């Protein structure tokens, strides 16, 4: 950890000094113990503000999108960030040559108050970055077995929901959706949500009513998941960001599980190829609905 922090600072300083990049996006200290916050630096002298520890819970991928136009930008990337970056590259939302990716092998992150490993890290299948320009630190062999659960754990929550009776399931989701305050944090952090104008904001079309009630909340949450269905990189940042703790990964992964069954879709964001299940047609696809 401290080793990676050292290297991050050193490379950030060098990259800014040599003007290879105009900005470095990493993490800095928050006000509280065990709290970090996204950090943007443009001066070599600021490199020592960079922090890397078990509490770097913010996934920085989306900033590669919002910081476009700032010149070439260096971004610290772990598995989740890297997959998000691949996603945005595949969707032609960012340019690879505008990024310098500082790869970090990741051992999982912890929640500030409880000190427990984040849910998303428990089911992470790619803790190491799948795309980078430079790796900071060894890619540890087998270091993550303790933290990385198997494919089964990846769908464990979905299976639990599938096992519920219909009414029970409805109650489960109604309860969750009625909690939603429609702050749209889930959308804003998502590397898939890069539409110039979200359906939510198309007020003239009026897809999404502005009232907060179960119907509208359900509509928002289900439409969001349909829109990201075959492109979600399972980074879990939406669920982490949600102030009302909605079980967003349950719905995201239900879609993914079904796509896996129907189209043998794999995991998204492993490459920057545009190859998502609903984005192409194959004569072998099941056509139950025809």
């Amino acid at each position, binding site marked *: 950890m401290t080793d990676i922090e050292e290297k991050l600072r050193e490379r950030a300083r060098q990259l800014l000094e040599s003007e290879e990049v105009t900005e470095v996006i990493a993490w800095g200290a928050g006000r*509280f113990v065990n709290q970090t916050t996204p950090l943007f630096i443009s001066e070599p002298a600021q490199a020592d503000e960079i922090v890397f520890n078990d509490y770097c819970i*913010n996934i920085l991928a989306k900033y590669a999108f919002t910081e476009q*136009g700032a010149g070439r930008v260096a971004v610290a990337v772990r598995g989740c960030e890297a997959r998000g970056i691949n996603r945005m590259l595949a969707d032609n939302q960012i340019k690879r040559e505008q990024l310098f990716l500082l790869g970090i092998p990741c051992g999982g992150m912890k929640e500030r108050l409880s000190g427990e490993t984040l849910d998303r890290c428990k089911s992470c299948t790619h803790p190491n970055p799948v795309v980078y320009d430079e790796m900071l630190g060894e890619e540890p062999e087998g270091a993550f077995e303790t933290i990385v659960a198997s494919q089964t754990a990846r769908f464990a929550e979905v299976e639990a929901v599938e096992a519920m009776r219909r009414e029970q399931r409805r109650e489960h989701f109604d309860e969750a959706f009625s909690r939603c305050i429609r702050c749209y*944090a889930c959308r804003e952090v998502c590397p898939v949500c890069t539409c110039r104008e979200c359906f939510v904001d198309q007020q003239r079309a009026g897809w999404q009513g502005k*009232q907060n009630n179960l119907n509208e909340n359900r509509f928002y949450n289900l439409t969001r998941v349909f829109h990201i269905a075959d492109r979600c990189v399972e980074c879990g940042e939406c669920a982490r960001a949600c102030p009302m703790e909605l079980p967003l990964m349950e719905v995201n992964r239900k879609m993914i599980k079904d796509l896996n069954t129907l189209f043998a879709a794999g995991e998204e964001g492993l490459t920057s190829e545009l190859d998502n299940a609903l984005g192409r047609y194959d004569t072998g696809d099941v056509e139950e609905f025809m």
Partner: protein
Amino acid sequence: MLLKREHLDELLNSLSKRARVYLPARRDDTTTSCFALYQQVGRQAFIDASLSLVNTTMPPKDLLFPQTQKMYRYGVDAEGSAWIDPIHDADAVVVFGLRSCDMRSIECMDDVFLTKGYDDEFYGARRALLTTVAIGCTEVAETCFCDSMGLDPNTAPAADIQLNALTDGSGWLVNAQTERGRAALANWQEYLQQEGEKREPSSPLEPAPSLVRSACTLKVNAEGIKEKLDELYEHPLWDEIAKKCITCGTCTFVCPTCHCFDISQENRMKEGERFRCWDSCMFSAYTEMAGHHNPRASRAARVRQRFMHKLCFFEERYGKSLCVGCGRCVEKCPVALDITVLIDRIAALSAASPAALAASPAPSSAAIEGGVAHGAN
């Protein structure tokens, strides 16, 4: 007067016969909490929750200013004439267990909705029927900083009734602080005891109650923040802090004093319903005008607006801070864009060099005013 812990339930039951009683409750399976209707809260959950919870995730503002407030229904009848039916849905409400920050937030909203020649009928109707019962904090969150914003976590002077926990955990000291509070206490009498009253003729006189006192651990330097911010409108710091803001609505929706709204409608065939609902200055659509002109198109402009409104503009208009130090946004902002860090930073800036405050580099302000949107925002 004293309210014994064992009488709390009876009291709430009895109050519930006359009014809707809301109190802090934790939501199942989450760490989030809100003010919930007493009858809907598992009694045990409430007893545990209300007394040990730090301030709730969602503030009580929904009781006065609902996230969706229906205003009127309208339509066209069979003869082709238009009709309008106003909706009046205010009920008598007792909100039990408000924290000092929550009570001050109601004072702020009163200023907005009921003063300076504006009298909001929807807010006013609910406010007139609201009894506020504050409770001195027995525990403070890591993120609470109300005592740096001029509040006292132990007392909310504007509340109708103030409760303070006794150190021995046996109950609360009860004080009526307003006319409404004194009238309301009439309904509490049979559940209260006089201080020093003998429970049994044989038991010794109870000593004067000793009360739990709390103080915030998080301290910020908010002194003169308004005057400092007056000089900072064009400062490059807005551009800088806005980089990490994702402009979601979290901070404004969890804030007890944020009160921006939009008016919209739901139409079905020949009738419809007009409502107003919470909106957020962090959303670009909030200020978007016809023809897509947007005076606050950039994230930096929106971030500046929120902090300026909280710490500067409101003070100027109403003489108090619109940030009550509840710490909800500090806890919930997904990227830890922390208002307490900003407050201290502004204090440090002006201490370092008062002249630096006035620095207004042209590129920064141009970027903000020109409304150059970042990314998809």
